[in-house]
C-alpha cells in the first residue's frame, strides 16, 4: 500500500478554463501518483508550452514547465542523468506532435523510461484557436477559416511507427480508466504514451463528444484489457473479430457468433499489427474508440542500457579517474 494520498501531490489552484479537460486529467494524475506511491521528491514532471503544459505548476513534485515542443528532449536528459527519478512528460497535441514531433518519435524509438502524456484536444488553445496536427481535414479554425487542407496525425500511428512499446488511451472525464492507464504507464519500463482525449470548451467544444460521457462511451467505445475478449456495447452484446486483413464488428448470438469467437486482446504481442488496428478504430468507421492499454510490450530501455554499458566498460577498462585517463596516452618525459 502506498503511504501517499492525492493530497500529497496537489499544489496551487489550477487556472484552466472551467470545464477544461485538463482539470479532470490533473485529478486523475494526483490519484494515480498517490496509488503508485513514489515519493513526491523522487518525481519530476516536465512539460513544454501550451494550456496543458501548465500542469507541473499544480504538482507538489519537482517540475519544469519548459519551452514549446522540447519536453520530451528535456525529460530524456533528466531521466538518463538520474534513472532513479520517475519522470512524467506532459504535452498537448501541438507541443508533442507539431513542434515537438521529432522528440516524440525519438523518445519512443530509444525507449526511454518516460511516462509521456499526450493531452489531445485537437486545437491550439493557448494561442486562442488554431488547428493542430490532430485536427481533422476540413477543420475550420481562426487559421483555417475555409477548412484545413491537410490530414491529421493519429498519435498511435506515430507512436507505433516510431517502434513505441506502450500506447494507452483514456477520456479525461473517465477518471477510473485514466488512473488505470497512468498506473500501467508507470509500471511499463520504457517510453509509455498515454493519449488523453479531452475537450476544449472554448475553442473546440465537443470534439470528443461521442465518448466524452459515460453513455457515449457505452455506445461508442471499447475498453480493451489484456487477455480479455474484445467485447463492447451497453450489455457487452458486440464484439470484434478478425476479418481477413481487418477487423469486423459482430453481434453475439447473430450468425452463430459466440463469445468464444471474439478476438482476445493481446497487449503484450510484439507484432503491433492488430494493436494498431484497435488504436485506429472509431474515426467514423462504425467501430468503437478503443480505450485502455492497447500495447504494452517489454523491451530494453535506453536509460537502463546506458547505465549497464557504463558498468560493463568500467569492468573492462583499467582507468577510472582523470589521472589514470592521462596515463592511457603516449607520454614522453622532458628532463
Amino acid at each position, binding site marked *: 500500500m502506498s503511504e501517499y494520498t492525492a493530497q500529497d501531490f496537489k499544489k496551487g489552484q489550477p487556472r484552466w478554463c472551467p470545464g477544461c479537460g485538463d482539470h479532470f486529467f490533473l485529478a486523475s494524475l494526483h490519484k494515480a501518483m498517490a496509488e503508485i506511491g513514489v515519493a513526491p521528491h523522487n518525481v519530476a514532471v516536465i512539460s513544454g508550452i501550451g494550456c496543458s503544459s501548465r500542469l507541473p505548476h499544480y504538482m507538489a513534485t519537482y517540475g519544469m*514547465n519548459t519551452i514549446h515542443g522540447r519536453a520530451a528532449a528535456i525529460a530524456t*536528459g533528466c531521466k538518463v542523468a538520474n534513472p532513479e527519478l520517475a519522470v512524467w512528460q506532459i504535452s498537448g497535441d501541438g507541443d508533442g506532435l507539431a513542434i515537438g514531433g521529432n522528440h516524440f518519435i525519438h523518445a519512443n524509438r530509444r525507449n526511454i523510461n518516460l511516462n509521456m502524456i499526450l493531452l489531445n484536444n485537437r486545437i491550439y488553445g493557448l494561442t486562442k484557436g488554431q488547428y493542430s496536427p490532430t485536427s481533422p481535414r476540413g477543420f475550420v479554425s481562426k487559421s483555417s477559416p475555409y477548412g484545413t487542407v491537410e490530414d491529421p496525425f493519429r498519435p498511435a500511428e506515430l507512436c507505433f511507427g516510431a517502434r513505441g512499446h506502450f500506447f494507452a488511451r483514456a477520456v479525461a472525464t473517465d477518471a477510473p480508466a485514466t488512473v488505470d492507464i497512468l498506473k500501467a504507464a508507470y509500471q511499463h519500463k520504457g517510453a509509455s504514451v498515454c493519449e488523453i482525449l479531452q475537450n476544449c470548451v472554448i475553442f473546440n467544444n465537443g470534439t470528443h463528444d461521442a465518448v466524452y460521457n459515460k453513455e457515449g462511451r457505452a455506445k461508442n467505445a471499447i475498453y480493451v484489457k489484456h487477455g480479455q475478449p474484445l467485447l463492447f456495447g451497453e450489455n457487452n452484446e458486440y464484439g470484434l473479430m478478425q476479418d481477413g486483413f481487418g477487423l469486423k464488428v459482430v453481434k453475439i448470438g447473430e450468425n452463430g457468433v459466440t463469445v468464444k469467437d471474439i478476438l482476445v486482446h493481446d497487449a503484450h504481442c510484439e507484432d503491433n499489427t492488430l494493436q494498431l488496428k484497435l488504436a485506429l478504430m472509431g474515426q467514423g468507421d462504425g467501430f468503437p474508440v478503443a480505450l485502455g492499454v492497447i500495447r504494452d510490450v517489454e523491451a530494453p530501455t535506453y536509460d537502463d542500457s546506458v547505465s549497464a554499458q557504463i558498468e560493463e566498460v568500467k569492468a573492462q577498462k583499467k582507468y577510472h579517474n582523470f589521472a589514470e585517463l592521462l596515463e592511457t596516452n603516449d607520454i614522453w*618525459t*622532458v628532463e
Partner: protein
Amino acid sequence: MNIKELEDVVVRFSGDSGDGMQLAGNIFSTVSATVGNSISTFPDYPADIRAPQGSLTGVSGFQVHVGANKVFTPGDLCDVLVAMNAAALKTQLKYAKKDATIIIDTDAFQKSDLDKAAFKTDDPIQELGIDRDRVVACPLTQMVKDCLADTGMDVKSVLKCRNMFALGLVCWLFSRDLNIAFNFLRDKFAKKPELAEANIRVIQAGYDYGHNTHSSAMNVYRVESKVKEPGRYMDITGNKATAYGLIAAAEKAGLKLYLGSYPITPATDILHELSKHKSLGVTTVQCEDEIAGCASALGASFAGALAVTSTSGPGICLKSEAMNLAVIMELPLVVIDVQRGGPATGLPTKSEQTDLLQVLFGRNGESPMPVIAAEHPVDCFDAAYMACKIALEHMTPVVLMTDAFIANGSASFKLPDLSEYPEINPPYVPEELRGNWTPYMRAENGTRYWAVPGREGFTHILGGLEKDNQTGAISTAPENHDLMTRLRRQKIENIEVPDLEVLGDVDDADLLIVGFGGTYGHLRAAMDEMRAAGRKVAHAHFKFVNPLPKNTAEVLGRYRKVVVAEQNMGQLAAFLRMKVDGFVPYQFNQVKGQPFVVSELVKSFTEILDK
C-alpha cells in the same frame, strides 16, 4: 655533412588523403617534442571525405612548427614541403617558403598523376617555376617496395608505408633520433608487431637514403631546445583538451558528466572523445538534433549532472532556445561552440571567429551569458575547466568558444595535476533553509541555490515563464520582471575573471594588439617579430569576453594606438566599443577560413604604427 642550427623550422607533409600524412606529421612532432622542442601543429584536411585518388581536391596536409624557443603557431610558410604526389605539390606549394626544400616521390609524378593534377606539361617542376636545386626527387614508391620485398606483404599494405619513408627522410634532414619514432610505432601497433617492424624498416630506409645520397650536397639542420620545461607530456588537440577539461571538472565537482550532442564538423571529436570514456562514468547521448542535444543537457542539469552540449555555429542557432531557458531557469550548462566558417553551412572544415556576437546576443529577451574563448589547443583544457566551474558555481549557462583551427591543431600538453586546480563548489541549498526555501533565493554573490530532484523538502518548479522573485510563482508583474532582469544580469557581472594581461612593451608600447580566443598564437608571434625589429608593441588577449576583465577599459585606454585583430568583420571591436566609452580602435579583419598569417599581421600593424 653540414649541420646548420635553426631557431625554428616548419615542415608540411602533404599527399593524398589516404597517404597517411597525418600520422607521419604526428610522429615527427612527437619525436621533436620528446627532445624538448616546442611544437604547434595544424592538420589541413580536404573538405571531401574521399576525393578521387591523386586529385587536387583530395590533398591532405599536416603542418608542424618545431621551435628551440616557445612557438605559438604552426607557422605561416614551411621550410620543408613533402609532396607525395603531383596534386599535393601543385596545391601545397603556396604554403612553402621561396627557399623551402621540397621532397617529392617521382613515382607519383607519372603521366596519369600529372593529368589528374591538371598539369599542362610533363615537367611540373618547371611549370610551377621551382628551383630544381631545392627539390629532393626520389623514386620513393619503388624504394619502399624494394625495402619490403622480402616481407611477403601485399602491394596495398606496402604502399601504405610510403609515408614512413618520407618521415625517415625528414628525420635525417633534422638529425632526429629514430629510436623515438620506433618506440612510438611499436606502441601504436602493439597488437601488430610485424606491421610496426615494417614501418620501422621503411623509416630507416628513408633516413639512410638521405644520408647516403644527399649528405654531401645538402645541409642537415638541428633545432636545439632552449626552453625545456621538465615534466611529462603528451600531444593533444584542442578538441581532446576540451573533452579532458570537462572530465577533470566533473571529477573535481563530484558530478556525473553528461554530454548531449549532435554530430557537426568541427566539434564532433569532442563527442567521439567523451563517448570513449564510459569507465569514468561519462554519459553521452547522441540526440536526434541540435535542439535535443542542448535541451537534454538542460534536463540532465536539472537532475544534478554537470551538463554539456557541443556544437558549431549552425548548432548554436538551434540551441539558442534552450540556452535561453537555462538563463531564466538559472541552471548550470556548458555550451561549446567550435567555430567554423559561416553563414549557414558556410565552410564546415575551416576556421573563423564569426560567432562572437551570436553567443553574446543571439537570443530573445535580456539574456546575459558568460563567454570564454580558448586561446590555443592546450588552453582548451583550462578554458573548459573554467567554463564548468563558472556554470556550476554561478548557476548559469556558459559558452566556451573554440574554433576549427585550435580544435584540430595540437601541441605538447604537460600532464596536469588536478590537485592544483581550484575547487568547484556548486551552491546547493543549505539545509537550514528547509521549509523556508523558494527557488529564486540567492546566495551572497547573487546566485540562485541549487536543489536537485531526489532531495526531500525542496520540491519546486522551474520554467521558461518569468517567476516572482520571492515566491517562485509565475509572475508578469512589471516591477518584478524588471528586478529579475537586473538580478540575472548582476549575477553574471559578479563573476570574477582574471585581469587582462599585457605582454611585450607593457609600459611604453606605441601599439597594443588586441584579440580573443584562437588567434592568440598568431598575434603573439606578430608582436614578437615586431619587437625583434625594434618596434614598441604590446599584446592583450581576451580569454574572458563576458564578463570582461575589470581592467579592460584601463588597459585599452593606456596606449596611443590599439588594433583589434579578429577573424570576423569586427565583432570584438564592436563589443569593446559598446563596453568602453570612447574606445576607437584600428581594426584588422580577415575571414578567409584560414589562420592568420603572421607576416601579414606584421605588415598591417607596422602600417598602423607608421600612420
